[in-house]
């Protein structure tokens, strides 16, 4: 039996009728058409389905929508603000950090959370923070370079972290 719930996704309040046992991943993709969130394993192993829950990266394949009705959910579709890409999206594109692109949405959301936690992350901090997101194409090198370039780009006006006290998340 479907249940009517309210989700706050990408600054939009949405009422959705969901099957209670369906995961946030399934509901985002199948009930809400937000197919930018990908699935690679549906068992919490690959990180492709990462979304932000109040700024914290979570695996949407292990999250039940009923439990996150009070939270602000950010998917890849919500990273762009007022028609402007997030600096990390820009640098991912410019520096070749997305090859096949399938891990990219999850990697970007983890990367955005990383930059909130560490506005100028070291390589070691990047490795710790992104360890839960598997990428099979890049060898991670271009991803690190994109994070570094975004950190530089963000150190201007928008350097203030929205969620300054985000804990380390090790995927």
């Amino acid at each position, binding site marked *: 039996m479907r249940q009517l719930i309210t989700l706050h996704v990408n600054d939009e309040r949405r009422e959705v009728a969901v*099957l209670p046992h369906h995961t946030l991943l399934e509901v985002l*993709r*199948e009930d809400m*058409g*937000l*197919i*930018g*969130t*990908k*699935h*690679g*394993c*549906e*068992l*919490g*192993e*690959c990180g*492709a389905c990462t979304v932000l829950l109040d700024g914290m990266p979570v695996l949407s394949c292990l999250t039940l929508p009923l439990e996150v009705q009070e939270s602000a959910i950010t*998917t*890849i*579709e919500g*990273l*762009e603000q007022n028609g402007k*890409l997030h600096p990390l*999206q*820009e640098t*991912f*594109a*410019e*520096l*070749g950090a*997305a*090859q*096949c*692109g*399938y*891990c*990219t*949405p999850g990697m*970007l959301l983890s990367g955005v959370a990383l930059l909130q936690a560490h506005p100028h992350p070291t390589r070691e901090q*990047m*490795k*710790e923070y*992104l*360890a*839960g*997101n*598997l*990428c*099979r*194409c*890049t*060898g*991670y*090198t*271009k991803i690190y370079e994109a994070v570094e370039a975004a950190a530089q780009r963000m150190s201007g006006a928008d350097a203030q972290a929205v969620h300054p006290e985000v804990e380390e998340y090790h995927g």
Partner: protein
Amino acid sequence: MAKPAQDQQQKTHTYKIIGTPRPKVDAYAKVTGRALYADDIMLPRMLFGRLLRSPHAHARILSIDTSRALALPGVLAVITGADLPQKYGILPSSQDEYALAIDKVRYVGDPVAAVAALDPDILDEAIKLIDVEYEILPAIMSIDEALAHPEVKINDEARIGNIHKAVSYEFGEVDAAFAAADYIREDWFYYEGNNHAPIEAHACVAQWEPNPSDPVGGKLTLWSSTQTPHYVHRELSKVLGIPQSHIRVIAPNVGGGFGGKSDPFSHEICASELSRRTGRPVKITCTREEVFLIHRGRHPVKMWIRTGVRRDGTLTAMHFRSFLDGGAYGSYGIATTYYTGALQTVTYKLPCYKFEGMRLFTNKPPCGPKRGHGTTQPRYAVEAHLDKLAHDLGIDPVELRHRNLIDPYTYTVNGLRITSCALGECLDQVVERSGWHEFHANKSAATANLHASNGNSQQRPTIKRGLGLAASAYICGAGKPIYWNDLPHSAVQIRLDRGGGVTVYCGATDIGQGSTSILAYIVAEELGIQPERIHLETADTTLTPVDLGSYSSRVTFMAGNAAIAAARKLKEQLFEVASERLQVHLERLQAANDVIYDEHDPGVALPFEHAVQFAEARFGALVAAGSYAPPEGIHGDYKGAGVGPSPAYSYSTCVAQVAVDEETGELVVEKLWLAHDVGQSINPLLVAGQVEGGAYMGCGEAVMEQQIFRKGRHKIPSLLDYKLATTLDTPEIETILVEIPDREGPFGGKEAGQGPLNPVIPAIANAVYDAVGVRIDEVPITSDKVFRALKNLAQGKGAELQPMPTEAPSPWPTRLITWQSNGSQVADQSKTNQVPVQGGVS
């Protein structure tokens, strides 16, 4: 058809687009979540499908009863093997698969039935309601078991026992060369094999559109995460009995392939048949476990090598044997078997060479092509073997390789034509950048740890560091198509719109490597326009001319040359009208930045849009096509010579730095230096990305990824247990691109997608020896094996951890083919690497 250019312009050319880093054409779609992959496609009234797979490694099917599943509300169709009785397979010589098993299942995961239902939850129930009665048969789970038990016949394709394919070649007088050698060494190696593990699991959506007025009954469209829409097109037609004219196969964005999406698959055929039966679209998305089961991954290969050398390290003869564990079906396996032997001659000069290869059927998921297809395993073996030879002879491993480098523009002993080759430059680069000589000088002075640590690891006294080196070569596209014919391997059409729009159509399939972007850059360079202006239609068997697919590292070379050929035809038309309008001689015209202009007076110029309109007024609709097939005369004239030839070869070298804890065996790969001879980067950003990705994947294969089976089952078919390298496991990778243009490559370009993986594995193996003095002659080189080898060494049991030798059948179960060049293959001494050239086709 385009012919390779022999005498290109000698003037140095400044490219506007080629060689410049720029974002991929699909980069912004991918970073915003807009890029559509097969599983993202949702169609009205779409059903969901799933396959019931065998729980047994080897069993006879006694009965299948689908009635209970069919009776479940929400189930619309159930099919079994009897519904799709036509055999298929990627190779014409291995037509041994059924979409759904008939009579027998041959591995855990072999599909038995397929269901279509309203939603995935109903599928969960329906699958359980299909009753299959099996009679369990003995299961063969290894190369040695397959040889020892010919009476357990797995697959009827095997003529003798479980031997799927055996090959045997001798080039030159091998026995005499061994007899004359100063020193001979023999070794056994084993490569366990692994899965591609792309992050996107295989998925497809099939849509049958009935048309009662059409004798065929309708048309089928299949969207699938495939690297080879062309071959899926062929096999769908064969199994479904629908003419190719009525089937459209589209590869949308593909979330990684690495070879794992190169076969036509059961789920693609079943989704299509279920759609035909229900009249509704059907989607099948594989689970991660299914990706491990349908596999087509790297073959486990056991290898034996015997090499003769002179005292100075010059190679005089090699005898190489490979035993491949093919799993239950043929897949690309015949080609893989040849590939385990064919390219040994392309890296170093071998005056004579003997190769015997054999592929065996086992009751395991079918193996196929993975990045480096069939050459990765022998490359590991040969490079580790040569390292041992170098140490036996007291020659520096760098020097041993330098003394044997293949020369550019020559032929190998097995008749393969070599064109450009920058292997020596690659070798010098990694040796210099890694500080190879300083490291070893310091190591002799017992201060290596301090020198090598680079501050990136702990300084426990038990940790020893080592550097290892290896070299490799790889094809830039298979010289022969899978179905031998005279048709182009790749074709490109370009249409110019009177509004200035440019649309490029090509069957090439972008699996993340950037092939669609490459088309844009090449056409933009030729026409003198911005690549962003170009619309690209790719990988669609209805809209786009055939490109054979994203395998064998062929796309940049072949589709790139086809794109140049098509663009030049249009450029001629544009220049003809521009020459008249501007009153400038044709030879003085240039095209760049969206204008055609006089190179002596750039102010005299015609905007691209105007030129297009004048040309359309003159010639009618502006459409041009170009196509490419590899040249003739690039291989010998013996049976089996079709695997190995390529219009060009890329070259790679790698130095690996490892740290090994002598107490625990813990192995950490700390850094990889990788130099790659790419001819000319079309976009260096993408080339570096391919090199880094290859290095990463090779490193994971070398030290982590295990393909283990227990009681007939894949033991770890999940991304948690199957160890893929995360950010924390991946070493720093330093990429060095070596650019000496190839005469026939597009703008001189060569492949980068597969070759750079190959030297990584042996470089790591050799580094382990350099660090702690043990040889692990089995991949993966896991810490427990290092620990075991160190213990053996301490107990005086030798430094080598070698696999159990496989007893070769005597005589080898196939006729020996001997071949020597009849002299028609003559090295062209006038051609050296030194002349920079432009373009790839005349």
